[in-house]
């Protein structure tokens, strides 16, 4: 019994980090109504930024946050402003412009392969890393310390984003735009600026996730792809556009990945995840928690 609890704890911690990675995706979807297929790549870029920041300065991995978050915010902001915005403008009348999805896929291809060109295919791991392999002993149970920090980051970031959207003027403007773009623009909100902001924030959150991952995870050019599909599944489980749902969806996936292999071969967990995903899509497309937008 104890070992199931141990697995469940690992699942919750790892899952919360998945949720953190997916949070930016769901935010971007909520506002722009577009699936950002480049999200995994943005996570990958963030991981490289974090990796190099720590490797070059020798600072504690979590201090990299100070650099990664603003850099990724600007990166996301400019990406939306320069690359994606023109498509939105061309497709003003389309409710869910498919062309934008295709463009984000183009961005994915470019970022992944540019990274391959620049940094090569090597797998990188932080060398000077005080967190590596740190485990918390809880009686018989072992809990990964960097994952625990990741869990904390996930919960705090989710809370912070929630409060930001609820309590600040900018947050309210973002919410208004997400609910009704035209009404928002009548109220004097510049929708495109909000899009840039949302994209920037979503990318910055991927930056937070990257900082949480880098102390115990490999950095390589295709690492984003591993998280991409996972993020899609999470946001649908939690409800596309739902902030709290991303975290919960992530935890569900983490739990399945962690607990299910104790009863079957690990390869089947993938099938279970897809099965659950489809079940939710059919039975409750608004997500397990039935919240379309909780903000």
């Amino acid at each position, binding site marked *: 019994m104890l070992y199931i609890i141990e*697995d469940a704890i*690992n699942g919750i911690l790892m899952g919360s980090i*998945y949720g953190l990675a997916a949070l930016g995706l769901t935010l971007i979807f909520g506002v722009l109504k577009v699936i950002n297929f480049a999200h995994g790549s943005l996570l990958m870029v963030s991981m490289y930024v974090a990796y190099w920041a720590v490797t070059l300065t020798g600072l504690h991995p979590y201090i990299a946050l100070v650099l990664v978050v603003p850099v990724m915010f600007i990166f996301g902001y400019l990406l939306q402003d320069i690359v994606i915005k023109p498509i939105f403008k061309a497709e003003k009348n389309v409710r869910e412009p498919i062309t934008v999805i295709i463009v984000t896929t183009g961005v994915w291809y470019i970022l992944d392969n540019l990274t391959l060109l620049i940094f090569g295919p090597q797998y990188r791991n932080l060398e000077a890393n005080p967190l590596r392999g740190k485990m918390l002993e809880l009686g018989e149970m072992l809990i990964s310390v960097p994952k625990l920090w990741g869990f904390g980051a996930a919960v705090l970031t989710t809370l912070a984003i929630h409060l930001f959207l609820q309590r600040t003027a900018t947050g309210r403007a973002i919410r208004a735009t997400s609910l009704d773009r035209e009404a928002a623009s009548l109220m004097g909100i510049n929708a495109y600026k909000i899009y840039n902001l949302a994209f920037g924030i979503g990318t910055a959150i991927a930056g937070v996730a990257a900082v949480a991952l880098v102390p*115990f995870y*490999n950095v390589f050019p295709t690492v984003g792809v591993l998280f991409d599909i996972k993020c899609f599944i999470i946001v649908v489980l939690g409800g596309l556009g739902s902030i709290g749902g991303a975290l919960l969806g992530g935890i569900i996936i983490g739990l399945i*990945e*962690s607990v299910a*292999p104790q009863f079957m071969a690990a390869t089947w967990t993938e099938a279970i995840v897809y099965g659950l995903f489809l079940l939710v899509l059919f039975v409750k497309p608004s997500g397990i928690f039935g919240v379309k937008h909780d903000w």
Partner: protein
Amino acid sequence: MNILQKIAVPVVAFSMLAGTSAFAENVKIGNIEPMSGPSASLGQQGKAAREMAVEEINAAGGIKSLGGMKLELIYADSESKPEKGVAEAERLINTEKVHLLTGCWNSAVTYPTTAVAERYGIPFVVPVSVADKITEQGFKTVFRIAAKDSWWTRDQFAFLKDMQAEFNTPVKKLAFVYENGDWGTGFAAQWKKLAEEGGYEVVLDEPYPSTSTDLSPVVQKIKRAKPDVLLLTSNAADAILLTNTLAEYNVQLKAIIGSGGGHADPSFMKAVGKNAAQIFDIGEWETDVNKPGAKEANEKYKAKYGQNLSGEAVDAYLAIYVIADALERAGSLEPAKILEALRATDLSSGPGMIVGYDKVAFDETGQNKHAALVIVQVNDTGNGLERITVWPKNARRAGYTPVFPMAVK
């Protein structure tokens, strides 16, 4: 007809571009490797090793029986996808008019690609793609330098048996953990057979998706199954993840035996650091191999490409020398003559022979019957972590005693 001209112009232009090299007087060797995509790291090592061999051969005067003809390498990116490999083989043979092909590292790519070469009668030298079936298709044009997977697994078990005797430490319970692609599942099938024959108890038989982002659950399973020895087949990302996680959960084992691949990737040791210590891995070659020229070759390679030669890279390096040797004897670029020469290969010396075994000669299926494997242990004897050859015993690095069972960390 205007439209057609518009289409035809770029096609013709492309074909001219592609055709320019046809006039140069070189032996053209087409190489299909994963240059991008998930196995890019291995493809690029193979490319570097081939380049080094070709430079050496050309600098030494090329193929003398062909009037000093130079070797020329032409690369094609398979992205680890079979259909791309097939298309590239078609192109290399038909457009680039290559005389030989090598590749493709991923067995899933090599397998259908060799069929293309067979159809055109073009010699295909496979440095390393371990799936047994590659040389078991009845093809006449395929030659494999490295051992096949049934030999890898056979040697892993032979090693295990020898170690038990040498250190008087019995091993009863085995755990198999492997990536769920054709490579891992192929190995696991062999392991199961060997375990049964050897009277071992298999306490865990666990395939995992190589796209896993968290392997803690698998490690937990290993821990609870309490095996004596863990056998792994992993790609680089998952080998790193598994090794670190095993250390985190403090899993106590008598031995961990890798199967090359991710465990042999140069980034592996760098990425896992001391967690790699005492892991065994099987491979074709090690930097400490007791062969003339091996050390020099490695140093040259390291200076050039910034990492040690891996087993995979050495196979590619040797493959070029095997090809050069065959060309020298064939004295012709006729595919039939090259094939004949390859079949008659009996290479036991030369710069390429830095491998652990003494000879390259192919059996009727095209498998190098002398291919043998060495088992190394990753350890630090004062010079940082390195791969130290421990098996077979006659190849063991002088003065090194393997750690078996693994020390409690």
